[in-house]
């Protein structure tokens, strides 16, 4: 029995004694990949079920995830290759403590989230068409001698509303503008989509859910007439050179943890890899194209492999207070309101060739990984493969109650506009309108119970 295995077994045992077995599996959010920790390290621990080789590789990947990259050439050549254009110097710059990032304070430039940009139309395989001069996203940082692309500034407009019981609420709708554009005016038809960095727990488990199991949940024509349709995104798998089901990213635009990681290295850090060997400089960005690189590619296959392993095997924290009356009541409300139609409580992993330790686990991610129309209020108007502007991938809810502890904020949704769970629910529309309306009609006590449930995740 290893220390890590103890950390796993200790929790179910606790709950067995606390609630007679029935809440055992509910506490174990992610099967044998559940970790019992509610401190600032809650998102940063290896799944306890890892083999000792994977356990060792986890720590190596962690060091790569945390470390800052520098511009080439540098004396430490294993970590040169940053830029020429970039958003952050390290993965942990946005995924701090492997958690979720937040929008900037009013008037401050974006640092830990980013703005995707494109123009109408679609590129090969249905990807968004990059803005011709600026590319796929605004990178506010650049190496010496290269103009940065500009500062993204967010401004919020308040929207007043009220719950059915009369209690008022206020939402804040973001608008983005790009100040000091480094390469001239952007296209007038520019499409923008702001994205915070999500927590990266349990990704290997989500990757191991069989495609068939996700497909079975699709209901594109709403045949069962529950108002919820749901469909898979179909995206381009660069390694296989084929279409594949999208699982990761706010619009399910990436098929694998590997591709998601390699794309982030390229676009967010300016670090090339075998999957994406060319720097993200557009034809118009001459100074960017003239810069020395840190090797071809800058991130070796071995190092990419270590980071991908790390991102796959971060454990998921056990739920807290599952036996509390409020939490139980909130869980019932969550289901009755219809939230669980998309925020699916339970999935099962399949064979899991990448991480055999994750095979055949019952997991509780509270997502179906499918796209759902969330209405005009959340629309970014920016089609991404099969996802239209209004469609978003159901965000996993596991770990959400610990973001406050780990990242010291409670911002939610793809652009972090919601300041807490209540606002996030209130933004839901489209397929989620019925669930949102149910929430609006809850009593104050019912709403508090619902938040207690969400906090227990």
């Amino acid at each position, binding site marked *: *029995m*290893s*220390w*890590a*295995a*103890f*950390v796993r*077994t*200790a*929790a179910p*045992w*606790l709950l067995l*004694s606390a609630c007679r077995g029935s809440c055992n599996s509910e506490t174990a959010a992610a099967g044998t990949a559940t970790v*019992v*920790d*509610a*401190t*600032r*390290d809650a998102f940063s*621990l*290896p799944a306890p079920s890892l083999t*000792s080789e994977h*356990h*060792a*590789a*986890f*720590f*190596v990947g*962690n*060091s790569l995830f*945390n*470390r*800052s990259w*520098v511009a080439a050439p*540098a*004396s*430490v050549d*294993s*970590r040169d290759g940053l830029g020429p254009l970039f958003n*952050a*110097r*390290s*993965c*942990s*710059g946005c995924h*701090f*403590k492997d958690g979720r990032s937040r929008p900037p304070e009013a008037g401050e430039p974006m*640092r830990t989230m980013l703005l995707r940009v494109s123009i109408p139309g679609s590129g090969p395989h249905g990807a968004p068409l990059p803005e011709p001069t600026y590319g796929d996203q605004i990178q506010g940082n650049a190496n*010496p001698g290269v103009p940065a692309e500009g500062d993204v500034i967010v401004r919020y407009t308040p929207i007043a509303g009220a719950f059915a019981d009369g209690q008022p609420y206020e939402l804040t709708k973001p608008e983005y503008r790009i100040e000091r554009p480094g390469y001239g005016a952007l296209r007038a038809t520019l499409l923008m989509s702001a994205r915070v960095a999500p927590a990266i727990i349990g990704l290997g488990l989500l990757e191991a859910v069989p495609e068939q199991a996700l497909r079975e949940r699709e209901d594109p024509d709403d045949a069962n007439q529950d108002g919820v349709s749901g469909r898979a995104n179909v995206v381009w798998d660069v390694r296989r050179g084929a279409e594949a089901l999208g699982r990761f990213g706010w619009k399910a635009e990436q098929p694998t943890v590997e591709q998601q990681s390699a794309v982030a290295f390229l676009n967010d850090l300016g670090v090339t890899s075998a999957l994406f060997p060319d720097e993200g400089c557009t034809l118009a960005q001459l100074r960017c194209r003239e810069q020395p690189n840190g090797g071809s590619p800058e991130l070796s296959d071995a190092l990419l492999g270590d980071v991908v392993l790390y991102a796959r095997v971060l454990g998921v*924290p*056990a*739920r*807290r*207070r599952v036996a509390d009356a409020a939490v139980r009541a909130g869980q019932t409300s969550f289901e009755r309101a219809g939230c669980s139609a998309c925020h699916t409580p339970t999935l099962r992993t399949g064979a899991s060739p990448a991480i055999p330790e994750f095979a055949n686990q019952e997991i509780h991610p509270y997502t179906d990984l499918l796209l759902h129309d969330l209405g005009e209020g959340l629309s970014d108007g920016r089609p991404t493969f099969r996802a239209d502007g209004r469609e978003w991938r159901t965000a996993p809810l596991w770990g959400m109650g610990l973001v406050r*502890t780990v990242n010291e904020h409670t911002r939610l949704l793809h652009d972090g506009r919601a300041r807490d769970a209540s606002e996030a629910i209130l933004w839901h529309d489209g397929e989620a309108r019925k669930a949102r309306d149910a929430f609006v009609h809850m009593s104050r006590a019912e709403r508090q119970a619902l938040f207690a449930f969400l906090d227990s995740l």
Partner: protein
Amino acid sequence: MTLAAALLSGCGRGSSKLAPERTAAFLVTYADIAGAAYGAALSDARALSKSIDGFVREPSAEHLRSARAAWISARRSYMQTEAYRFYGGPIDAVELLVNTWPVDENFLESEDGRSGIVVDERIFPEISARALASSNLKEGETSVSTGYHAIEFLLWGRDRSVTGPGDRSYHDYDSAPHAQRRGEYLRAAAALLVENLATVDAQWRGEYRAAFLARPADRALALVVKGLGSLSGGELLGERLIVAYETRSQENEHSCFSDNTHEDLRLNAIGIQNVCLGRYADVVRGVGLSELVRGVDPALASELEQDVAGGVAAMAAIPAPFDQAILGADSSPGRLAIQRAIQVLRQEADAFAKVAGKLNLRLDPATDRAP
């Protein structure tokens, strides 16, 4: 029988016959050690701060030597306190400001001297303890601007030597560019370290100590063992040994500027042993974790003592400097010693898991978190 099987069959629960007075005495000893160890760390940090003030006021080779010696001495006491991390205790509230590593030295001062907090008056107009605290980790987990390792960089500089540590000149604090800001930075970082350790020390002498001792004994014990196991089987084994061993990279060395890593490791192991034996230097003599275990399972108690002593010995056997020990063939003496330490720590961490099972300890994520 595995721990899981023991727990599920119920024999784990039945065999837990801890005498309440003995357990209480252990917990008091544990809190006493915390008070003494953090007290020493605080007093050594104050001495470091004082020495740094003297050096910055009057930079000289001799004063730089004294400041470095004060840093090494401050590490001797602080490293023994790390057994008290990882369960949301007082240190965990400030640890990111105290001992974060590895430091991306470019965040403080780039190699070409053109960017970083020390030189960039535009982005970092103010150098103060407050300003350093608010820039800490702003660009990721290695953009460290505070704590022991930022101070270490300011005292030693980059280590490019194969035989010794970094050799920053004291002229960096009188005639070199940005000397004044560098000096202000060093003083502010030392003052902030003192301030943070003072809060931890105060907690373990007052409020937190009382709250800790008021917890149900098994809940307090669970924290103790979680702290020990996490240091041993996570931080030390994984972050401080495996990463450096696998990558052979100095950037993954704990105290990479001063070449003090071998001592850091050894003193961490001693910190673990202090709790197991219920003693701290010649200041505390009480009931140790192994004595507590002995009342339930004498064989396991002996195993624990052996494994923990083995940890100290294995760490002490790693040759200095650590940045050279990780290089070369796997059969080199340095890499063999580190490989051996990795094995020993795995065994030590597993011993803590056995103790947790034998004492029927359970982690409750709802309450075992920051107070």
